[in-house]
């Protein structure tokens, strides 16, 4: 192979890789979704109002109110320190209920309420917000085993 052919292959590879790299990185920023705790949501600056984010927390017991015969519901999400009100419209996953962890996607509307139409929990019952995972999943498991013992 001659030198010019080599350069030819090299340049075409560079151009293709560059184009795809541009495509990849260009799409990266706008498709990043930030993941917050309720406390972080409370402290968001107004610039972030209306921007799509995810929030992870526990669904507060007794807070879940379903609007009858609609797809709307309201509940509160807490991380222990702060609690935010959430309005949700859509179909919640099977695992969604009070007193468990949930991750909701939506936006913090004018600093008052979190509006969401997606609750994440597609595959596993072990799913929970990452902070709570850090706090330890083994502990609840041990408690669970204890509670089953005669």
């Amino acid at each position, binding site marked *: 192979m001659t030198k010019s*052919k080599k350069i030819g292959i090299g340049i075409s590879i560079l151009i293709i*890789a560059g184009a795809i790299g541009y495509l*990849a990185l260009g799409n990266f920023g706008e498709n990043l979704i930030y*993941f917050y705790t309720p406390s972080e949501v409370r402290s968001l600056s107004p610039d972030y109002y209306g921007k799509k984010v995810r929030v992870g927390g526990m669904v507060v017991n007794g807070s879940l109110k379903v609007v009858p*015969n609609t797809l709307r519901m309201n509940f509160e999400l807490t991380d222990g320190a702060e609690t935010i009100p959430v309005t949700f419209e859509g179909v919640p996953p099977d695992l969604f209920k009070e007193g468990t962890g949930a991750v909701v996607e939506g936006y913090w509307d004018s600093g008052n309420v979190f509006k969401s139409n997606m609750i994440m929990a597609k595959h596993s*019952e072990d799913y929970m917000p990452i902070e709570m995972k850090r706090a330890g999943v083994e502990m609840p498991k041990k408690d669970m085993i204890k509670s089953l013992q*005669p």
Partner: protein
Amino acid sequence: MIIEIGYFAVIAALVVSIAGILAPLIGLKTGNPAWIRAGRQAVTANFILISLGCGSLIYSFLLRDFSVKYVVMNSNSRLPVFYTVAALWGGHEGSLLFWAWILAAFATLAAWIHWKSHPETMPYLLAIESSLTVGFLALIIFLSSPFERVFPALAEGMDLNPLLQDPGMVFHPPFLYLGYVGFSIPFSFALAALLSGRLGEEWIRATHRWTLFSWIMLTFGIIMGGYWAYYELGWGGYWAWDPVENASFMPWLVGTAFLHSVMVQEKRKMFKVWNLFLIIVTFSLSLLGTFLVRSGILSSVHAFANDPGRGVYILIFMSTVLILSFGILIIRSNKLKVKIEMDSVISRESAYLFNNLFFLIATATVFLGTLYPLLVDTLYGTKVTVGAPYYNKVFLPIVLIILILMGIAPMIAWRKASMENLRKNFLVPVIAALAGTVISAIIGIRQIYPLAAAFIVFFVAATIISDLYKNSSYWASHSGTSLLTGIWKAWYHNQRRYGGLVTHIGVLVMILGIIGSSAYKLEKTIILKPGDEFSLGHYSYKFQGLQDVQGINWEGAEALFNVYEGNNFIAEMRPQKRRYSGGSQMPTTEAAIYPRHMGDLYLSMTDITQDGWITVMAFQNPLIHWIWYGGGIMGLGVVLILFKRKRRES
């Protein structure tokens, strides 16, 4: 007692596999074949010992021995026997043991199959496979043992995650693991080739079948995961770019690149270092895939419990594998200088080169999207996720280019394609593709990606048909028989080639399924009371009412729908909502799927209120079946290659 025997067997296996690393190396050093034979006995013994370990766990499950923690966590007394056995790989600890067991089985098989034909590389192969076994067994024994007991014993277990109580979920992980672990054999052969200095095409020929087998198992595993997600999760889709799905997709992408580039080395003795690089990356990504799922370091919906000790161990294991294998590759790569060079940009070599390039770019985009959140979290403590739109936007163009190459590469000449060659092979397909695209546009396909896909599908299909036609008419005129006999002869003389082309047809069918079901999907979420009707597409659905249903270990409600096409009644559909009676009390949604030629009707009941109203998600997914059919055709193609007749070397 039984579980302790299993535990002891696995501990013994760890000791034996350490011996299995040392013995062959000593044998190599001293030139004493007895030590190398001891290495083979070690991997065989390992297989028996780990089988005992798995056996004792399965036995404990069958006995419903709720003094074993893993049994408590993953089963209960009402769990059907079928799922009780599958519970072996239902949780974190058991699935690692299951992985180690497949590894030992494959190592043993490879040791006995290739013993005579590869005496020089065998000691290295044994030592490498044993080292991998050590890595897994140490993780199992010290950090995630499935053999732990609970005191006092419990009366009842928690239950297997109801989502896993499904045939799709029973078979999906083993197939993935067969793929992941299968790649360990080409990987070990590659490293053994580097270490022994036998750097010819030998290792590639030896591992040809292993590679194909692993690749198709991984393919099936991924497709089954998609199929399971489709009918069990009730969200109407099959792929969500979830980090754990990506974890199995990355080794598949690089494995596919490897599968193609080895052909260049076989035919043209090129790409030597490249092939070694690819198989190392493939197997490393297989390990990464296992660990990403099983360590829970990603905030995935699949992620299992996180344990810092486990995470650190896994990090050390991964880095050891990577540093050692790339280290060996770099040190030895100076021996791999090849004098043969590429003759032209327009040649089959360069088509394969670009195929590889795009598969790697595809992998890199998935890798970036999957691990970027982890990186950001580590560096800045900010948590982000990368959404599906990123993958869809970046991935689709890359896939289309790969598909075009899929049509070009098998038909273009090696070394340097002449204009004559190009015209002969591609004039008809290009015309066919243009005609096909125009017809698609006329019958109403207007979006850009479906049109591009139509062009490519017609193009690739036409290249395959015209190739088969040319070859069989050659054989027909050569032997003076009919075209049909010609097809048979063409087939017989090129089994590997046509097996590969059948696999390509499978890919086309699958692409049609993916494009059809994503671009032309209809969906509706609606709340209904008994007697209500709604329509979607050409179909209308009447909700007749609810009734109670019961299974062995679950109870639930079933909604009855009558489905009409126009005024004609065509089917009854019964989506269910189940609640399993085990400790998890977890509700699951059983979608009702009514297959039609051009697409599925899909109903999923997501909520029931006390006064009998229900929430239903309805989907119409055109061509979605083609995805599964495509997978089947791909499998057929691989089977045709694997069982090709041996012909005498000419």
